[in-house]
């Protein structure tokens, strides 16, 4: 069942795992509820001369089906915490091997790379449009911004999504790609007539290839 | 006055909140008004405290202080509170069947309320002349920090409040006319009570606004 896109980042598998856990739990509940429903509809279908049983309720049942969902829900909530702070809290980001600045605008992604000095915000930085080049197996931190409307930085294969809100400073996200190859960057927040074509390409290189690409750019 | 609604056949309804329909309806309506002003005031608070610098009272305009006329508005606040007092006295009068007191104090409330609106309009004119608008003039924007934001929130909050007061004054006039026509009695004066509720609400909102916009 390959409905989910390829999982190509370090935390993608964890997010997928969370998805499947919830799928299994909700799937069981779904099948259970629908099966019981269909069973009751058949078994208690109206027949001549029958009367329904005059039952108003059951406190015991109420307690059982209040506590049980509550416990399951609390479990899912706790489990969800596994990856959320790690992905979203800048204080918990790993040390960045590469830092880039991504500026979203109608309708493109402008990506600024640190130049040979390895530092963003210096004179040797260079920018590329709609092309994100990163090394495999190394944490990449993206400093995200928007100069017009709200966009959303979405790389499905990495399972990362972060809104780019104009006026918000210090928006950051991170990911670490686990395999080389080419992936896609999409805009995931309606941003105008070109929203559907605000596409970027993500190139994950081996460390050597990335360094040679970097060198080529200067 | 009746505290339960009487239904066809002379039959009393189930006791609800033991408050007649008109009064209950006004309380319910005021609850929605609370939420409306909460939205506006909440937005102001978020914007102001997210904006960093703000034009504070007590600092001269040239040094980035507030362009608002605190003293005049303080007097206006006092007037509005007085009008709530006259409103209370109007209601108390008709509770005792005192028609003359009712009419006197209703007229007083109308006049004071109208004066409040008048002074607000005057203040708007002065501020506009100085360049303080929903979008500030360039000169003022250079002096007053976050002037556009200040203007946006100031005019929206006080403008909607002023609209509510103005509509209140119009309703008050109508109630006053009815009072002069002898439509209210000791037993039946719900209209006076509910316009009073509305009026006190509008006064309360103003006290909050005055505090967080002018004083803090």
């Amino acid at each position: 069942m390959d409905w989910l896109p390829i999982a190509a980042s370090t935390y993608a598998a964890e997010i997928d795992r969370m998805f499947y856990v919830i799928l299994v739990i909700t799937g069981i509940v779904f099948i259970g509820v629908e099966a019981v429903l269909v069973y009751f509809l058949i078994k208690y279908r109206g027949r001549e001369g029958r009367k329904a049983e005059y039952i108003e309720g059951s406190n015991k049942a109420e307690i059982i089906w209040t506590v049980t969902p509550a416990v399951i829900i609390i479990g899912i909530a706790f489990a969800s915490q596994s990856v959320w702070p790690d992905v979203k809290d800048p204080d918990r980001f790993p040390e960045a091997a590469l830092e880039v600045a991504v500026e979203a605008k109608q309708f493109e992604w402008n990506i600024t790379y640190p130049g040979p000095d390895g530092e963003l915000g210096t004179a040797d930085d260079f920018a590329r449009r709609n092309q994100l080049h990163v090394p495999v197996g190394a944490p990449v931190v993206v400093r995200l911004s928007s100069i017009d409307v709200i966009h959303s930085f979405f790389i499905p294969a990495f399972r990362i999504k972060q809104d780019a809100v104009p006026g918000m400073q210090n928006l950051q996200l991170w990911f670490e790609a686990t395999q080389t190859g080419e992936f896609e960057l999409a805009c995931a927040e309606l941003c105008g007539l070109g929203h559907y074509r605000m596409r970027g390409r993500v190139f994950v290189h081996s460390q050597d290839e990335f360094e040679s690409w970097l060198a080529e750019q200067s | 006055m009746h505290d339960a609604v009487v239904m066809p056949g002379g039959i009393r309804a189930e006791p609800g909140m033991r408050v007649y329909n008109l009064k209950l309806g006004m309380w319910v309506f005021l609850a929605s008004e609370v939420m409306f002003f909460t939205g506006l005031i909440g937005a102001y608070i978020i914007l102001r405290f997210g904006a960093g610098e703000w034009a504070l009272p007590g600092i001269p305009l040239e040094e980035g202080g507030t362009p608002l006329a605190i003293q005049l508005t303080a007097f206006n606040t006092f007037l509005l509170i007085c009008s709530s007092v006259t409103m209370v006295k109007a209601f108390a009068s008709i509770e005792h069947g005192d028609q003359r007191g009712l009419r006197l104090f209703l007229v007083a409330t109308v006049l004071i309320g109208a004066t409040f609106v008048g002074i607000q309009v005057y203040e708007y004119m002065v501020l506009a002349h100085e360049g303080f608008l929903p979008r500030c003039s360039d000169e003022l924007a250079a002096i007053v920090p976050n002037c556009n934001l200040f203007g946006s929130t100031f005019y929206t909050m006080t403008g909607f409040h002023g609209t509510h007061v103005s509509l209140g004054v119009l309703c008050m006039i109508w109630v006053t006319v009815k009072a002069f026509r002898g439509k209210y009695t000791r037993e039946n004066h719900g209209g006076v009570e509910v316009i009073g509720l509305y009026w006190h609400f509008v006064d309360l909102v103003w006290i909050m606004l005055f505090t967080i916009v002018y004083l803090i």
Partner: protein
Amino acid sequence: MATVEAAAVPLGHAHHEEMGFIRKYIFSTDHKIIGIQFLFTCLFFLAVGGLLAMLIRWQLGFPGQPIPGGGGLPDTMAPSGIMLPEFYNSLVTMHGTFMVFFAIMPLLVGVYANFLIPLKLGAPDMAFPRLNMMSYWTFVPAGILMLASLFVEGGASGAGWTVYAPLSAVPEYTGVSLGQQLWIVSIIFFAGSSLLGSVNYITTIINMRAPGMTLFRMPLSVWSLFVTAILALLAVPILAGAVIMLLFDQTIGTTFFLPEGGGQPLLWQHLFWFFGHPEVYILILPAMGIVSDVLANGSRKPIFGYHSMVFAIIAIAFLGWIVWGHHMFQSGMNPLLGTSFMISTMAIAVPSAIKVFNWLGTIWRGNIQFHTPMLNSIAFVAMFTIGGLSGIFMASNSVDIFIHDTYYIVAHIHYVLFGGSLFGIFAAIYFWYPKMFGRLMSERWGKIHFALTFTFYNLTFFPMHILGMGGHMRRIYDPNQYEFLQRFQGMNKFISISAFLLFASQIPFIVNFFWSLFRGKKSGMNPWRDNGLEWTIPSPAPHGNFEVTPTVYRGPYEFSSPEVEEDFLPQDLPLNGDRKPVRQQVPGD
């Protein structure tokens, strides 16, 4: 304005002078006529919303191909019938807008709160009949303005029904100016209409219940409408304030949501969703209440766990105020806030689950009659379960990182709003049609409509879960721009064809509805053998409702009671057999 003098005399109309057609049917103050006015108007808007959806699905199923019959559309929308991206964005926006504000919410509240509340409580009309009339007549201009926005220069709003700023606040970003402003003014009128309604419903339910109709003898339909009215009373003003600020940003140079002026785009989201989340409970709760009434009737059994059901409604309403941030998990807000919103969002699954189990308990050991309203109510339970369960995925903030703004969300929305609310609305329409019009809709065509709708509805919306799992974004004019989405073109086409068939399946409903007005079987007073007070008076219900105010002796769910031979027991029937009204003496009177 009504004064207390009016309350001192028996309510209802002591005078029966002949009212002209205009007073009686156009500017009526009779809650039943007003409810029927809303019904016709909102069925029209439901069709409009559906038509807009068909256009959306055309583009997604057959991208870039000329719309059949679309040659007549102006070049600003679809030159040579081929849809432009900006028109697509407007379609998506207006589909959501019409469906939420002009179809689902008013079909539940404007129609059934108005029609049912006085009838089910034993009251002659609402507390404020003239305000009630104005509630309809502010709704109509709201609808007209919203329709008009489709035809003005620049087109209708293209910022989504959620109109996020700054996209919506600055005309240059979308090319839409007047259209967005009309949207806002329309919503302001809508807010006024909603307010007038809420004040009426709440006051009437609190103050105008017949003797013996204690709060815990009210049907769940009334309970849910009561709680919904309170939610609307408190949430809609926030929306009104927000859209006014947006209008000011657009027109008079304020900068509430514009960062250039120190404003905050996120403020819009907070305001909108603080309204928006209670709004979605407004959209589902009345349907839940209606379904409870119909399930008990169809099972010939009391609703299981009546008190729990009431508390669940109240719990859902309360919790609904503290979950709004789950729409903003990926917005850049503090991750700690994300955690707290996740917890409250997960919590709200519990009262919803309680309701589903109680509905199952209602059917258990029943004697089920599969009439059309019952079929639709059963579908509600089955489909709402799916919609509710899918919500758990997005409640998990980590999973939401991936599925936010994908078709997983679209699937969820439509399972709860169509699978839930709309099936509930269909149940209500079939069930109370006889009380409105004195005739029954055709059972056969009702069942055909149900079977077709249920089938094509699931074929349309279930696959959207799969699209969402694949990362398919929302509001995308042409998914084929992305390689990772090209494999879904076949599924998009399948969904579109199912959607066209779903739309076509509504034809039997429309024909049945109108045909039955004139040729439907006369229904008599109580065709469903139900216990509610509305079934103790003639069909259609007469002006003034009850000749004499009834006295209530029991709750509304006494089906198959051991105390009587019949399998139903009306609320107002004293068990010594005669229906003499009791004049209620107030102590100290």
